[in-house]
């Protein structure tokens, strides 16, 4: 019954973007974010938007999925917009009663809100096209040079992987325990906040007990299959950088170059 849960945002289809190496995707996402912050005028945002739409198109992810990521942020967006609009000093544009809108305020409001939108859009593009397990793989590889300073890159990735493996199992278990306690007259729905928090104890205690038992079992099973940390370990899933990855790097480099040119040569204030 819980076969249909998808974790995080991952949109499981096949595409050129999905097949990119996760390490490359993480790095390119960061570069794109830098580009977003370098943008000087609306023309720059138009560039970024075009790029995002292009990637979305190539990734077979519907644009509405991209917009879905922005939806929860709408209040913060509106707040950012109006705070900047009303509380930035500079050349007055409009003055109605106690409301003063300045040229700088308008510019800042638009810039900050758009940055926020693209920030979410770019990272969404990555998480929509990269499964959590690939993400953790990519992170592990990217952070592995830090192992020399004892950064636990492998351990973190292993934890991530085990967590992903056990989330569906524990969800099923939660459902089962909840039903069992309901059969004993437990009430998880009514009462005030404190009562409701208290009513969670019969659910949480068995869940924790079970999680610890599973952890103990799993540790034994891993040991019996010769697990001894990340050293001298090989991987079934190997990450290979392909021609598509190079192409993607070039595309993002071009985007970055264009944005830098735009921020240098189009004077600020011309198109905002």
């Amino acid at each position, binding site marked *: *019954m819980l*076969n*249909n849960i998808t974790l995080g945002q991952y949109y499981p289809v096949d595409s050129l973007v999905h097949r990119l190496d996760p390490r490359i995707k993480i790095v390119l996402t960061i570069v794109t974010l830098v580009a977003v912050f370098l943008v000087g005028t609306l023309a720059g945002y138009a560039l970024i938007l075009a790029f995002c739409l292009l990637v979305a198109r190539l990734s077979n992810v519907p644009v509405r999925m991209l917009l879905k990521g922005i939806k929860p942020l709408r209040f913060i967006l509106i707040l950012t917009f109006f705070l900047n609009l009303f509380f930035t000093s500079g050349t007055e544009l409009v003055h109605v009663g106690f409301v003063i809108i300045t040229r700088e305020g308008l510019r800042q409001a638009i810039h900050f809100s758009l940055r926020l939108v693209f920030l979410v859009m770019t990272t969404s593009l990555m998480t929509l096209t990269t499964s959590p397990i690939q993400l953790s793989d990519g992170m592990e590889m990217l952070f592995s040079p830090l192992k020399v300073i004892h950064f636990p890159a492998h351990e973190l990735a292993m934890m991530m992987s085990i967590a992903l493996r056990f989330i569906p199992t524990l969800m099923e*278990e939660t459902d*089962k*325990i909840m*039903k*069992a*306690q*309901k*059969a*004993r*007259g*437990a*009430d998880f729905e009514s009462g005030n906040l404190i009562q409701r928090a208290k009513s969670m*104890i*019969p659910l949480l*205690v*068995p869940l924790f*007990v*079970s999680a610890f038992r599973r952890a103990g079992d799993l540790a034994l099973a891993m040991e019996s299959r010769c697990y001894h940390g990340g050293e001298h370990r090989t991987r079934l899933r190997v990450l290979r950088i392909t021609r598509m990855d190079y192409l993607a790097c070039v595309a993002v480099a071009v985007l970055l170059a264009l944005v830098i040119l735009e921020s240098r040569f189009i004077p600020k204030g011309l198109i905002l």
Partner: protein
Amino acid sequence: MSIELKHVNYVYSQGTAFQHTALQDVSLKIQDHEFVALVGHTGCGKSTLVQHLNGLLKPTSGQVLINGEDIHGEHTNRKALRQRVGLVFQYPEYQLFEESVEKDIAFGPKNMGLPEDEIHRRVIAAMEMVHLDPARLAAVNPFELSGGQMRRVAIAGILAMQPEILVMDEPAAGLDPQGRDAILGIIRDLHQTGTTIIMVSHAMDDIADLATRIVVMNHGQIAMDGTPREVFCRADVMREAGLEITEAARLAGTLRERGLPVPEDIYTQEEIRDAILRLWKEKVHAQ
């Protein structure tokens, strides 16, 4: 107290790509003092059916009636009905959570809003029913008990609510022969003292020993419904539902096929033993 299912259908995740019909037009009436065994292979709909019996699941269509009253009716007090139908899930020891055996068993009665002294009385009575010594074990942390004991604590937690119908999903699963016999003995006693029992099980020999009626499920439907004698002589229907019959019934069938005059409705060890003895005596007489 009777429990009745009328044309119950249940569909999981309706309207999604994962839609799956778990129960299809199931009608079933269980009377007072019956001991019904619910059998079928995994995924046949037994567990879904069981969860309908005390209103944990609501049928997609159809009705569940307790003493003629619709469990999902507008004016039904579902909480009160739930107390009259006790449901023991598979591996019930995994739902223990209190720091002492007594407190854990008291959880159900407490939720019913009973007075303290009544709760205490019920806890003691429930512990005795599952053969746990109240004087020795009431204050013990349930997590320190053995697996079989923990399961009995969990069952006592339901018994303390004094249900008239007890529904159990594989109460002996995972226990060794001793633990299994202890649990089945408790269930037999409960039945004899008047509780209606509905038990899901895979162990045909346990069922042959205990049940007064067997309901066979297959593909979300009732494939057969009858006394153990009626059900165990239908090896064909059972096999189709992915189930075995008792070894005694199998032996009787094999002997009959080989031309020996063995009665058709044999399913217990005693019956087949007596049949073989009879054959033997006839042969000795003939010689």
